């Protein structure tokens, strides 16, 4: 592999990883702080993508879709948390899997009823519809650069919130010892609601940003969910930093697996996960 191709593949892997980070960060927070194994997280990604398609088709603007769609999904997260997830905090993981898997089926049916089963394309915003030449042969769509930058900005903002604000402090405290936080008189119910809603919005935002890149199709949430779980396990449960490193690692190993070991590529990500677990059983940042 020539150096330019190698550099290009690193770029591909990082870009793929960054988008994955947006989804996985919500999953890891909900798992780490709320203690809930949320299978429906991929559905929020899928719903975000469908909303982006639906709103963009009517307003002609992906930005409008994000501005309308993200609050809608945050609200949906709040409702789902109140109606369903809140009943799971004291239950074991099996009950959580059953209920959240039920939600997956529910959201899939909802998608079928509301949007149908067709594959839809979402146009990239016209300001970003140009391409940046990379090396001699390939070009990179500006929109991919934009999503990568947007993901980095979101990651930086999350870091600020978690390290510098009171809310972030509680989240960190919740991730390391939720019972203790409750014992100190902090209203964890409220903390949990806000956190779940934020996680939902993040997954939906990822779906919206990804919509022009991946097209919108039924079942798109499930694939992302599996990879996100891998990221959470690699990164260490409840750790944003871990999710960031894990997502990049998954993106890179998937990309290089495809080029170097094509027959083995779909197993590559899991091989990396197994290796990380052997060396650091609690994950990279655990």
């Amino acid at each position, binding site marked *: 592999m020539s150096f330019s191709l190698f550099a*290009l593949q690193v770029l591909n892997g990082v870009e793929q990883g960054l988008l994955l980070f947006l989804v996985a960060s919500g999953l890891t927070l909900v798992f780490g702080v709320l203690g809930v194994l949320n299978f429906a997280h991929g559905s929020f990604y899928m719903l975000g993508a469908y909303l982006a398609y639906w709103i963009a088709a009517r307003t002609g603007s992906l930005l409008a879709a994000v501005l309308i769609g993200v609050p809608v999904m945050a609200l949906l997260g709040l409702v789902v948390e109140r109606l369903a997830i809140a009943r799971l905090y004291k239950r074991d993981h099996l009950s959580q899997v059953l209920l959240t898997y039920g939600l997956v089926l529910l959201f899939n049916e909802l998608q079928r009823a509301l949007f149908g089963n*067709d594959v839809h*394309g979402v146009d990239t915003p016209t300001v970003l519809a140009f391409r940046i030449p990379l090396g001699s042969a*390939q070009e990179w769509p500006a929109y*991919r650069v934009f999503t990568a930058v947007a993901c980095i900005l979101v990651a930086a903002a999350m870091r600020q919130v978690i390290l510098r604000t009171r809310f972030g402090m509680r989240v960190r405290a919740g991730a390391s010892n939720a019972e203790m936080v409750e014992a100190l008189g902090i209203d964890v119910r409220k903390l949990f609601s806000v956190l779940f809603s934020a996680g939902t919005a993040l997954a939906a935002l990822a779906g919206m940003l990804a919509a022009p890149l991946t*097209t919108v199709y039924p079942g798109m949430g499930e694939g992302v969910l599996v990879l996100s779980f891998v990221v959470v396990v690699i990164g260490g449960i409840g750790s944003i930093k871990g999710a960031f490193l894990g997502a990049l690692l998954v993106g890179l190993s998937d990309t290089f697996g495809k080029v170097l070991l094509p027959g083995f590529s779909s197993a590559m990500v899991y091989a990396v996960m197994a290796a990380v677990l052997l060396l650091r059983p609690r994950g990279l940042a655990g």
Partner: protein
Amino acid sequence: MSLSRRTFLGATAASFAAGRVFAASKAKIRIGLLLPYSGTYAALGNNITDAMKLVAGKLGNKLGGREIEWVAVDDESDPAKAPANVNKLISGEKVDILTGPVHSGVAMAMMQIVRQEKTLTIVTNAGAQAVTGQLCAPNVFRTSFSNWQTSYPCAEVMLKDGRKKAVLMFWNYSFGQESMAAFKEGYSKGGGTIVKEIAVPFPQTEFQANLSEIASLKPDAVFVFFAGAGAAKFVKDYADAGLRDKIPLYGSGFLTEGVLGAQGAAAEGIKTTLHYADSLDNGPNKKFRAAFKEATGREADVYAVAGHDTVHVLAQALDKVQGDTSAQKELIAALESVRLDSPRGPFRFSKAHNPIQNIYLRQVKGGKETVIGIAQKEAEDPAFGCAMVK
């Protein structure tokens, strides 16, 4: 529909009159539909079914003088459930004729059973080679296509365009593999070289790494097999990577079929080969498309055409044997001699019971699939391993 006593008496009298001639066959003819009505392929199953019922309606809901009774089972495109579903239709519902499925895995399971039970079977979509190849059987016909037919002719098209170095990229399951094998056969025969084969695990749709690889290999052209959501995404990614204007893309028609809207401008210029195109300029096609649109509100497609032809084929053959499905030998002979003016063009069965049909060369122009020629006239599947072909 309610039946008044008078029409009921009339019908009874008529059937008594006819009874002497059709003693064995005055009962309704039961047609089994083994198709997906849920899951990824639901739209395909629905289009095949609606087209069949539409054509049957135009024929007075009768085949060979017998009223049609449909028995539909949702096969969920699940090969694991296929044996149970096929048995349900054959042993439980006692269908006279079995039709379907969409998914090749389901078709393979179905073949095992109908070869033993000798049920007359019409495969309405699945393109697996074995159906009219190694597993071919006198009682099994196919009205759709074989994977070979959709890909082999494209090799010659590419070579004619002067593209002698190609990269192949495909979803690594039987449909993709058979498409590639057929393409390679034609391409190497014509003097083309394959620079690299990229097998993508099904149903993965993250192509960026492979696109960078293609860009660095700089082939004359890329031949791909993807369908549905994967096809939509691949074509968009290919254009986004700036490859569309540098390295032309070719494929079997499933690359653009049904997903042209999602692909948008990215699909412009792509050449594909298939046994049908929406824009085919012939009478039966225009008539059928208009009727289908009116009946369902949807546009007809290659799947609907297979449904359309299935009923016409059955109608021709069953008329010849006066609807007597128990005379299977005569019925099979009648099916073998069917000639059809299909929306896809002239249609007849090969010795292996696969359609002999034109394969069209199509190109996306201005967001529409246009037919720019015939890639292979009256293409006949080679039917490798079929004992009925000598």
